[in-house]
């Protein structure tokens, strides 16, 4: 049995690792396809390998998706917000460093899981008992924070007071519009889903591809942006142990929030954590001009700035791993208070009908994470090197055009045919607002946040009546 599990862990790591190299393809889309295959061959694949197989897939995704995210585009907001500084690093020819730093963050995330989760195992259940009755208003606070964190930008740009006002509040307003429209979509699709019943297990897929994948592709296709071909391959990654120490705290906070709170993604968690630990607004400040040639000035060197970037990337890697992998691991926390595990994250929703955890699975999962994570880290370095070699040769726009067709086929066949395409079209329009009006794309997460919070607070019926959907 252990050998069979190891084989499937390897299979999951390789399949997810390769598929996740495709820009804009999210692990939950890949998991949906794998699940569909599993429905057909369930008599062949042993039941006990389901969890290790999907766990290895999500671990491999947490690592290897750093490559398309760094060099091309993020598949979703959670991923995008955790690798923000990589844009600057790619521009400076340090895309390889950025990709590997995020991977090292994820590796640190695995170490954190190994060290702390045996304690969490017992603590989480009590945390759940305390927090559960308050989740609705906690989610409400997250939403308010979220909208308020969209800080006015560009106040000094316009000439007249109206132009200044308009410039500074444009992105805040765009954020609110995105949030509201996404919330309405969420309320409609949760009250009266349009997806055919036979494909309901993938009903959220067209919505998310619309919110995150398609707008990224449109942006790339019309922006005429160029990825700097010259990327350096250094022998050493410019990061010290202190960077990991500094990055761990926001990473853990962001990861804990994202993995525990429903509908809160790693992106939102990372923003929360960076505000809480003051690692935010990585603006380049001017430095004090030396008066004499060779004069040493200690204030604000680019190393300090890039250390902040490194810390952000490592912290983002930690958050990402805790969000994707940690949330799925919570399913295996079986205690008297949580006899069926703590269902968190998209993978849990997908697997719930076909799999239920049993006592002892938790440690098999930890072993899977370590094994798959180690392979994925090596694969990340290897594939990053291949990517920087291929960068000058590939035409990313052509690749994206192919990806658009692949995603449309996925939506058509797995997301409800033309209905799925229609839903994806509407959410693509909404997803384009933050992209082109310069506000946070995570406002689109209101599609889950608002219906969940309203449902917890007991107001979902009232809203459904207002919308005349009852």
């Amino acid at each position, binding site marked *: 049995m252990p050998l069979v599990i190891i084989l499937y862990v390897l299979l999951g790591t390789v399949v997810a690792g390769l598929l996740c190299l495709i820009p804009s393809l999210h692990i939950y889309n890949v998991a949906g396809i794998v699940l569909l295959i599993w429905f057909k061959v369930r008599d062949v694949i042993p039941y006990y390998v389901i969890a290790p197989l999907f766990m290895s897939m999500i671990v491999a995704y947490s690592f290897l998706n750093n490559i398309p995210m760094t060099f091309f585009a993020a598949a979703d907001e959670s991923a995008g917000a955790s690798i923000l500084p990589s844009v600057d690093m790619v521009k400076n020819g340090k895309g390889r460093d950025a990709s590997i730093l995020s991977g090292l963050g994820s590796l640190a995330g695995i170490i954190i899981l190994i060290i702390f989760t045996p304690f969490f195992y017992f603590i989480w259940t009590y945390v759940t008992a305390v927090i559960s009755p308050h989740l609705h208003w906690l989610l409400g606070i997250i939403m308010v924070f979220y909208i308020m964190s969209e800080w006015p930008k560009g106040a000094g740009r316009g000439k007249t007071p109206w132009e200044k006002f308009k410039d500074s509040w444009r992105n805040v307003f765009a954020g609110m519009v995105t949030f509201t429209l996404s919330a309405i979509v969420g309320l409609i699709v949760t009250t*009266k889903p349009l997806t055919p019943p036979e494909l309901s297990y993938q009903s959220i897929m067209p919505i998310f591809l619309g919110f995150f994948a398609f707008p990224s592709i449109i942006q790339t296709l019309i*922006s005429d942006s160029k990825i*700097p071909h010259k990327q350096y391959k250094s022998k050493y990654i410019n990061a010290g142990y202190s960077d990991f120490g500094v990055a761990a705290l926001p990473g853990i906070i962001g990861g804990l929030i994202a993995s525990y709170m429903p509908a809160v993604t790693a992106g939102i968690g990372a923003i929360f954590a960076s505000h809480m630990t003051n690692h935010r607004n990585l603006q380049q400040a001017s430095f004090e001009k030396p008066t004499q040639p060779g004069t040493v000035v200690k204030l604000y060197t680019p190393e300090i700035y890039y250390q902040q970037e490194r810390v952000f990337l490592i912290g983002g890697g930690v958050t990402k791993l805790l969000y994707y992998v940690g949330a799925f691991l919570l399913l295996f926390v079986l205690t008297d208070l949580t006899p069926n595990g703590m269902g968190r994250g998209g993978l849990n929703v997908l697997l719930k*009908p076909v799999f239920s955890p049993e006592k002892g699975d938790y440690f098999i999962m930890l072993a899977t994470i370590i094994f798959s994570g180690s392979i994925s880290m090596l694969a990340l370095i290897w594939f990053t090197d291949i990517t920087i070699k291929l960068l000058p040769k590939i035409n990313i726009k052509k690749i994206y055009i192919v990806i658009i067709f692949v995603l449309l086929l996925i939506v058509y066949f797995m997301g409800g045919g033309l209905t799925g395409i229609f839903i994806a079209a509407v959410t693509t329009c909404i997803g384009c607002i933050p992209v082109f009006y310069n506000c946070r794309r995570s406002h689109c997460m209101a599609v889950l946040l608002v219906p969940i919070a309203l449902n917890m607070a007991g107001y979902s019926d009232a809203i459904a009546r207002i*919308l005349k959907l009852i």
Partner: protein
Amino acid sequence: MNWYISLNSNIEGPYTTEQIKEFYKTGKINNDTYVLKEGTTDWKSFGMTPEFQTKQQNVNQQKIQNINPSNVVDEEGLCPTCGYFAGSLLACPRCGASVNKKISLVLVKKISVIGSIIGIILLWYAAYLKQPITVNIGDIDEKMNGAFVRIEGKIIAYEENKEKNSLRMKIDDGTGIINISAFNKLDALKKIFKDRMPGIGDKVEIVGSINETQKFGISMFLSVPERLKIIEKFDLKEVELGKLTRKNVGDIVKIVAVVSSYDKRTTRKGTVLHSYVLRDKTGKIGLTLFDKAIANLPEETKSLFNVGNKLELIIRIGEYRGELQAEIVDFSKIVKVGEENVEEMKKEEGKEEESTEKEESKKEEPKEEIKENTVGNLKKSDVGKTYKFKLEVITLSKKSKGTLLKLKDENGDEIEMMVWDSLSNRISNFDKLKSGSQIEGKFEVSEYRNKLQLKIKEAEDLKIIKK
């Protein structure tokens, strides 16, 4: 042009371009060293600074800089890639993307806003018009987790929890059983139904979302009280056990019977079962209760099952290995109406059974005449009628609780038939059916999702004539 360099976390400068190039040649700085042009605040690594790049690299850079400024910037001057303010620059100072667009950004912006609003209105209207599809409970599988559907069936178990203001029911539609949960909705349901609340045996229609877990099977959440409707109020009838046949499977009835025997046994898996036989003057029926179910009952209810007690109880007729079985639907409604001598009752019953068998063997049952038909001749008006068919199997697909057969008649007209596992287990050689096999039998015409289907009622109704 003067430059500053950053070495070992210190800034040095200003130096001329030539000096910087000399530093590179001597190894004082390398491609990774950050350099800053005087008058700017944007640190770049030496290797990525155009002034220090090779000729070819500079040509590429020039291409970006030589673009005509008149057609470059959108009205806000934001970089279309990262949103950073690019002003009149031709390339974004933050991410380096060219702001020379092929498609108007303003147009894309307008499309995104207008498309969002029109799209949401259309989405709402589509949802407003959407009528949930009615599904068979037996058809629900893992892929339907979260599906918004309608089910119709009889309530076979009903439990109110006033403390939690919730309601739980079990619905049976003849193809399977589903649990219904209405959390925090009991008061709202009572407001709607007043004194006509749904109860055991009522035929109801429920619209809700399917929730399926591997551990607990399928259930449905009733989140909106208005989505529960009573189609037919149940009229509870008292029946004699002797009159029950297989046709009554699934029916909820009232019986008055004596507990005539009791047996406790343990299965191979260690589950403890309590088996009883209930008798009245006309016949008997088995009743099996799990140890867990007995353990949760109050003592006075447990004592009701003592042998010799005559009970009035509401049961659902079930079937196990071809024998009819009683399933108690509501323990709270069991009433003890007396006590009887079981031995005498058995003797009397034995005599009666003998004489009844003799009488029955003399009688010749009038046989129902069933006509032959073909698939092509079937119309919607045939729904509910039973015909004889000879059909060939085109495909078999295994579902979670049955097998869906795609069949064709001699004219090539196709139709589907779902054979539930509870029936197929009793059909001989059913597992040997394959594409090309031929079957015959009496099948009822039914309708499912606006398509005609065939339905098999009894295992004996289907015969395999060619494997």
